[in-house]
């Protein structure tokens, strides 16, 4: 059976520690930007933690929401790319093909979640960070768009390992870096085509909502929170 990868993020569990952001940087060879570039809004965080404030100081509550590519089934970024650099793969992922990308920026303009990132310059890392590059992930040149891949390299690896052992891929065999590093265990990744997977059960629970669902983008990231 085809896989259909999805994620559930429990907002009532998220502490906003941003371990997922750091893990993503390490796993996916995200460049390090300077304070000046960061001030200009040029940082690339494939996953970010948005903060929402409720109430006035001192009686204030902060809500955290990790936002990554929502891997929409009906993705607005896909049809607008003139060179098929962004397309839908058979497992439902929005795949970004760096080699095809010419940098029209259209996909990023059409993404309602603002989760697409551009390589403004050749990527740079201060020493000794280049020594810890992940060999499974390409380093993107200047001029191309990039975004969260649901750690597609880990999906491929898990499938290969399972095939080698001759066993089917079990729920929980694939863990993107953000999910693996979440200390509060707020994030769950799995196959939405398998009704018994944890993510499927969470997505079907009454606590699940999707971000900007009203746009009809059909995201595959489910946010869990207390129904009010």
């Amino acid at each position: 059976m085809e896989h259909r990868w999805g994620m559930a993020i429990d907002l009532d569990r998220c502490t906003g520690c941003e371990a997922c952001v750091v893990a993503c940087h390490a796993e996916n060879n995200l460049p390090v930007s300077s304070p000046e570039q960061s001030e200009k809004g040029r940082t690339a965080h494939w996953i970010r933690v948005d903060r929402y404030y409720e109430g006035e100081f001192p009686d204030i509550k902060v809500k955290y929401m990790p936002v990554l590519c929502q891997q929409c089934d009906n993705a607005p970024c896909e049809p607008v790319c003139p060179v098929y650099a962004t397309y839908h793969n058979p497992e439902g992922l929005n795949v970004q093909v760096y080699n095809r990308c010419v940098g029209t920026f259209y996909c990023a303009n059409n993404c309602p979640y603002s989760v697409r990132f551009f390589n403004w310059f050749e990527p740079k890392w201060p020493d000794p960070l280049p020594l810890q590059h992940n060999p499974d992930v390409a380093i993107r040149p200047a001029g191309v768009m990039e975004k969260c891949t649901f750690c597609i390299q880990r999906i491929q690896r898990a499938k290969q390992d399972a095939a080698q052992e001759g066993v089917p891929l079990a729920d929980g065999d694939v863990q993107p870096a953000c999910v693996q590093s979440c200390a509060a265990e707020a994030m769950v990744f799995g196959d939405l085509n398998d009704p018994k997977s944890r993510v499927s059960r969470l997505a079907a629970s009454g606590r699940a909502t999707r971000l900007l669902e009203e746009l009809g983008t059909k995201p595959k990231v489910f946010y869990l929170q207390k129904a009010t």
Partner: protein
Amino acid sequence: MSATPELLPYKRIREDLFRPLSGISRGYLLTTSIAFIVGAAGLAAWGYQLRRGMGVTGLQRPVFWGFYIVDFVFWIGISHAGTLISAILRLTDAAWRKPVTRAAEAITVFALMIGGMFPIIHLGRAWLFYWLVPYPNSRLLWPNFRSPLLWDLTAILTYMTGSVIYLYLPLIPDLAQLAEHNTTWRRRFYRAFSLGWTGSDREWHALERAMKLMACIILAVAVSVHTVVAWDFSMALAPMWHSTIFGPYFVAGAIFSGIAALIVVMATLRKVLHLEMYLTRHHFDRLAKLLLLMSLLWLYFTMAENLTVWYGNEPKEMAVFGARTRAHYARFFWTMVVLNFAIPFVLLGIRRLRTIATATIASACILAGMWLERFVIVVPTLANPRMPSAVSLYTPTWVEVAITSATFAAMVMLYLVFAKLVPIIAVWEFKPHPQEED
């Protein structure tokens, strides 16, 4: 000032209009050099951008489109000067069009050459621009025809081809005349480009039919081109872009800025080339009335666009609306309203005030106003995306300013060269009986 060029003897007309082609004045050299320097500075800035990366611009997440896309829409809008105006006038047989058409058609071709550069300049990897051309690659993969950018490229290439032909056809009889009147390299140049024109009846009929046909085709293409440019925005899911009015709004705005550009160019040519007898108050008056009409139409569209958003009061749209009319970008928005409506309405609407000078001032205001209009459409929407955490501001850098100024210099330079090679007013159109030998 009631003299019409039609009443002058044809020999005199030909002499008057051929005269600017020979000799190079000091002013000409100076203007060309300044234009060349500004243009070269823009090219250097682009070279710097290609070498360092798009980070040298003021673009950032989420404002991925900035000055370059504004310039693109602006120049494609200017290109509507020519073709549309001259095609409409040609099809309706308006006799007063004769001294206006070629100047207008030349604007179209040059503005398209300049505007067509911007989709390439704004690419992250500009050296791969040909991947967008509708042609299959070595693995037989065509570009994505669902992308409005591909419609755009197709439309602009079509328009470019059409408007070059449309400029060229009425040039042929003049080129043949010029070949007769010149020696040296110019004679060979004009002879080659006149395609062996002899002025036979058959040729005149063929030319007449070809021009009529091209006028019809170019009208449809011109409307479609700016509609498709508008669709680059309205096909996107972004607040205040996703609007049905954008197609006609952009077409009207393009004709509006096109006429303004034409008036500015005509006033300059009139002064510099001493064409007072040919480009008379009469021509400016008619174009000024047309400009006034377009100004009112522009106001109507702008109101229709903004009023519906304001009344609908949808939060995401209102964020953009607020940024446009009350917050950071309000100064541009209200300047635009003054430049595009208030000033032209007073200067062109009151008959006593409507002179060549005021029409030129109003047109210059409109050119600036229409550039701002595109800025106000492109940037505030991107700066206020649906996710509140991504809201941001955009400030251009010197690279974008240099490249933008260079395009204006390029327009001046192209026009200067053009005016030295061919008469800027179609001479043969003044021939009492073009079919007869003189």
